């Protein structure tokens, strides 16, 4: 059963017809946690806004829970939950007032769907009389998620919920999303952080309005075509320069404390490479096979 079906969706802006979303197609199964992964300006927000009926597409079509995003926008509006990117709640209302307000606007009560938000809400309940403006980033996020969930949506759209949030709060947020899947809510989430991709059931890598690849994170990583080496040296910048100059190099870039590199010859002799690097004045050289990540795949797709 498919909760979201997108076919050749296109969106342009302004007189110059700047293309924001370019012929995008994908579908999301019911109960799936689906990630739209890409940098700012890739078109993630435009896709979300079209699916939540806030924008009209310039081409293509899409259905959410079987409803057409143009014709049946009312039906979609009463069934989905949405958390916009810059969403900041009502700063001058307390946690409880915010939640109560959104529950009422969506024609429900907190009690009716309390089971859905219970896990999250108990964490912020001790501060329920505090105004949203005085909450920490992580707490605001939890409250926003509660507000988006309170009417028991069939599908939840979360647009960059973790942008600008520190790594600890990001981790907590993803744990909450994983738990929500048990409630059989379909979740679409967008993020510019590649490391969050592995937490989704399936992901679409997106850049400049185009989808580069759609699959499970594992499959995307498994189908990485080249042999990826992780190389370390005491002088990172020099290491990158030397690798760039290597005659057999395909691509090389910094990756945490290592540099990741691919070579034309899949069977590059790692020992010879070490010698080459030392000859070029590097110390503390270490070469090993790298564990491919989504970020490597993304870089490969962009290259």
């Amino acid at each position, binding site marked *: 059963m498919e909760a979201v079906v997108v076919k050749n969706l296109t969106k342009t802006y302004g007189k110059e017809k700047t293309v924001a979303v370019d012929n995008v197609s994908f579908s999301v199964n019911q109960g799936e946690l689906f990630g739209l992964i890409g940098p700012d300006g890739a078109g993630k927000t435009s896709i979300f806004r079209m699916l939540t*009926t806030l924008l*009209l597409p310039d081409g293509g079509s899409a259905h959410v829970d079987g409803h057409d995003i143009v014709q049946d926008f009312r039906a979609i*509006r009463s069934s989905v939950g949405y958390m*916009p990117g810059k*969403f900041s*709640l009502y700063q*001058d209302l307390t946690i409880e007032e915010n939640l109560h307000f*959104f529950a009422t*606007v*969506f024609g429900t009560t907190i009690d009716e769907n309390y089971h859905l938000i219970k896990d999250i809400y108990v964490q912020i309940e001790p501060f329920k009389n505090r105004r949203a403006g005085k909450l920490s980033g992580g707490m605001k996020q939890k409250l926003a998620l509660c507000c988006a969930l309170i009417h028991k949506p069939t599908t939840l759209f979360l647009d960059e919920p973790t942008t600008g949030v520190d790594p600890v709060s990001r981790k907590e947020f993803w744990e909450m999303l994983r738990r929500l899947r048990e409630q059989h809510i379909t979740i679409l989430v967008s993020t510019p952080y590649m490391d969050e991709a592995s937490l989704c059931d399936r992901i679409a890598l997106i850049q400049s309005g185009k989808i580069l690849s759609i699959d499970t994170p594992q499959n995307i990583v498994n189908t990485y075509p080249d042999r990826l080496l992780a190389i370390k040296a005491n002088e990172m910048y020099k290491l990158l320069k030397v690798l760039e100059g290597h005659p057999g190099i395909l691509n090389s870039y910094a990756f945490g404390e290592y540099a990741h590199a691919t070579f034309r010859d899949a069977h590059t002799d790692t020992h010879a490479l070490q010698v080459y690097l030392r000859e070029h004045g590097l110390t503390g050289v270490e070469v090993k096979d790298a564990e491919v990540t989504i970020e490597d795949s993304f870089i490969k797709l962009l290259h």
Partner: protein
Amino acid sequence: MKQFLAFVRKEFYHVLRDRRTLLILFGMPIAQILIFGFALTNEVKDSEILVVDYARDNASQELLTKIGSSRYFNIRQAALSHSEILGAFKKGKIKAVVVFPADFNEDLLHQNKAQIQIITDATDVNTANMITNYLSSIIVDYQNQINQNLEIPYRITPEVRMLYNPQLKGAHGFVPGVMALVLLLVSVMMTAISIVREKESGTMEILLVSPFKPVLVIFAKAFPYLALSLVNVTAILLLSVFVLDLPVKGSVVLLFAESTLFIITCLALGIFISIKTDSQQIAMLISLMGMLLPTMMFSGFLFPIENMPIPLQIISNIVPSKWFYIIVKSIMIKGLGITALWKETLILLGMTLFLLLVSLKSFKIRLQ
């Protein structure tokens, strides 16, 4: 309905928790009434008047007592030459000089007419005008008094009449003006800003993606400001009746009905601005420049429209507050009823319907 009420309650939370909003809402009407109403009349009250009485006869003494007993003037007497009068003005304390010629009584008795010279400090034109007018009317008053039993009347000065404002209360024209201003600020500016704020914070997106009808969102946002505006009308009227001693001559019910009509005009304008703008600053700027300024200029409450060039007079007709100002003035001061005001009311009603239509037309159920 429950959703609507939740919305209205939320809106009141916003208003009541923001000190700046509260200040604009309730501080401003009070301050404006006091500034415009009180301070302006105070300016003429207890003005220092220097009297140079060359006559020192019955008539001049009587008239002087009359002037002195008015609460507008404090009289000081001095025998000065013309050049010394100039010097007295330069010291700045004196607002006007009244000069009685040596044969004031003589002239009055034998020629039936006499002259009094009033010299005012015209650096402040408004005050000078007001003082001249007040003095003139006191003189006319005196003239009427001594003329009561005479066949051939004495004439002292040209006739000056102050229509509809016999007690010479300056605040009269200001109360309707302040009312128009305050309602504009609350209904246009605050409504526009509060809707645009939801756009900025992203909450508007959520509200659009909800089963709640988008048009109802707008109405629910406007409703609290209608209520608050009516509170303001009440506050202004109470202030003017009990603090400024200005009774409402006409029907209070009619006054509230017309105010409600004008508030709806303003709300429609506010909603229109909020639809067309995306930032609070721009909404505020448009409200101030586009609404407040024309009201000050063209409603007739600071500058008389009759004195304006014809093109400006024509422009003034499209400013809703002009019509509201006329209506309120007529009800409050002249005590006129709807029979005399149906034309203005109809114009205002037409404007309201037009603006409501335009803002509903331009309202979008999507983001773009």
